[in-house]
């Protein structure tokens, strides 16, 4: 596999349009394995579109998106779930299951990848400890703060031991202190070898964490 040469995430001349609106215009970049990349830019620049293209939620109108050797556009309806199971995603709006406890939210991800039930408790315990949620194990999302909810989302993404972690504005709804703590966690995870692509417009965080930046403006890469 030539992923190391072309990057675990490879975008080549990607164009994505929504009607007459061009969201991405001939975007090309590579992200190497184990890299931590910020995708920055103003609202509506195309940051989330890039993440959605990686996740297979959207398909490019033109160009090539390949992730860990998979050409996303060619994935069939049956292959897409298997593909998504290899990617952990942290959403801006958390996307936690409201009627399940913290532990159950994480366990669902393990059930999705088909991990035997006997191995769940160890994994759940491990990621909740990593995310600092040990005390919240049996609480429901309605009993948690925004920061805690974001950490649940992160714990769920990490539980499946993904190769790539996508984070769409993970600090968008959090105060500085909470954001900082969450970023420390992302950095720790990155040091363990995970590739992280984070879309953010929080410049303070970008400045503090000094990672590679892909800056998108009006659907094109201004700086990488």
């Amino acid at each position, binding site marked *: 596999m030539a992923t190391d040469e072309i990057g675990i995430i490879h975008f080549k001349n990607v164009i994505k349009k929504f009607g007459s609106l061009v969201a991405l215009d001939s975007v090309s970049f590579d992200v190497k394995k184990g890299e931590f990349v910020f995708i920055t830019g103003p609202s509506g620049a195309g940051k989330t579109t890039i993440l959605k293209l990686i*996740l297979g*939620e959207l398909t490019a109108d033109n160009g090539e998106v390949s992730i860990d050797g998979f050409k996303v556009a060619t994935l069939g309806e*049956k292959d*897409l*779930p*298997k*593909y*998504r*199971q*290899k*990617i952990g*995603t942290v*959403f801006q709006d958390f*996307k*936690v*299951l*409201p*009627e399940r406890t913290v532990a159950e939210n994480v*366990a*669902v*991800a393990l*059930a*999705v*990848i088909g991990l035997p*039930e006997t191995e769940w408790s160890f994994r759940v315990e491990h990621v909740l400890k990593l995310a600092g949620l040990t005390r919240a194990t049996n609480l429901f999302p309605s009993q948690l703060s925004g920061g805690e909810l974001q950490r649940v989302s992160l714990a*769920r993404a990490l539980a*499946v031991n993904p190769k790539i972690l996508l984070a769409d504005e993970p600090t968008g709804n959090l105060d500085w202190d909470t954001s900082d703590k969450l970023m420390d966690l992302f950095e720790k995870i990155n040091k363990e070898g995970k590739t992280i692509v984070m879309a953010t417009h929080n410049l303070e965080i970008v400045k503090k964490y000094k990672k590679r930046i892909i800056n998108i403006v009006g659907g094109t890469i201004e700086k990488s």
Partner: protein
Amino acid sequence: MNIHFKTAWDYIRRSPFQALAVSFVLTLTFFVTTLVSVLVYSSSKLITYFETRPQVIAFLKSDAKDTEISDLQHKLALDTHIKDIKYVSKEEALAIYKKATSDNPLLGQLVSPSIFPASLEFSVTDLSFAQSIIDKVKGESIVDSVGFTAALGGETSLNDVVGRLKTITTYVRIGGIVFVGLLAVTSLIVLLVITSMRVVGRREEVEILNLIGATKGFIRSPIVIEAFIYTLFGVVLGWAISFIAILYLAPTVVTYFGEIPILPRDALGIFELFGIIFVIEIFVGVVLALSGSLLAISRVKKVR
């Protein structure tokens, strides 16, 4: 507890009235289905009873010789439409008479075997052949007269008896099946509505599960399991209520119908009958649950 089963159970607990509505409709359906099944069984037993009992009695002339009787018996035995041929001697006829008049022994004492004719009793494989066979037997030289025992409602010919029985049975079967069919369709619709509501209610959850890589099967499983829980509940409860009702009514019904075996006479037979009905209903329940839930899922997806 399996995660899909737990999800399904949680949804049932969260909206108990929807669950109760669909469960009761299914219970009613399978209750009536069980009763109609028993009715169909009983009516077929009723027909079989009249078709297999010795329906035709050929009364023999008093001067008929043993060899002639034996020849006739042999001749009848060769007819493929005739079965269970039995010779009843004058003495046996007297014994039957005495048994029939046992509540008044004086009647038995006043008669002797000589006044009772010997007879050949037999059944026909299908009652539609009865009239032609009777006509044929009447033509035999040693036969004095021919009678038949299957007389209901004052019919004058055996064909009328058969026609009447079969008409009643057909009406019972068609009526029962149509009624069960209507209830089954109602159950399917109620199941469809409740399941559709579930799918719509789970939209956010489905979206999240999709994004974290859940397969269609994973997403659909709790919905299908929920439908299975409702139908299995309906089958078991509906079947059990009708089983208890039939067990309660069985002695009265069996006594009323006398020697006609409209229900199995022993416990093993009853359990066997209800066991077969239960297995068939479970199968129907599985089909109902699968079709109801999958139809609802595909319908909601189309609308979206």
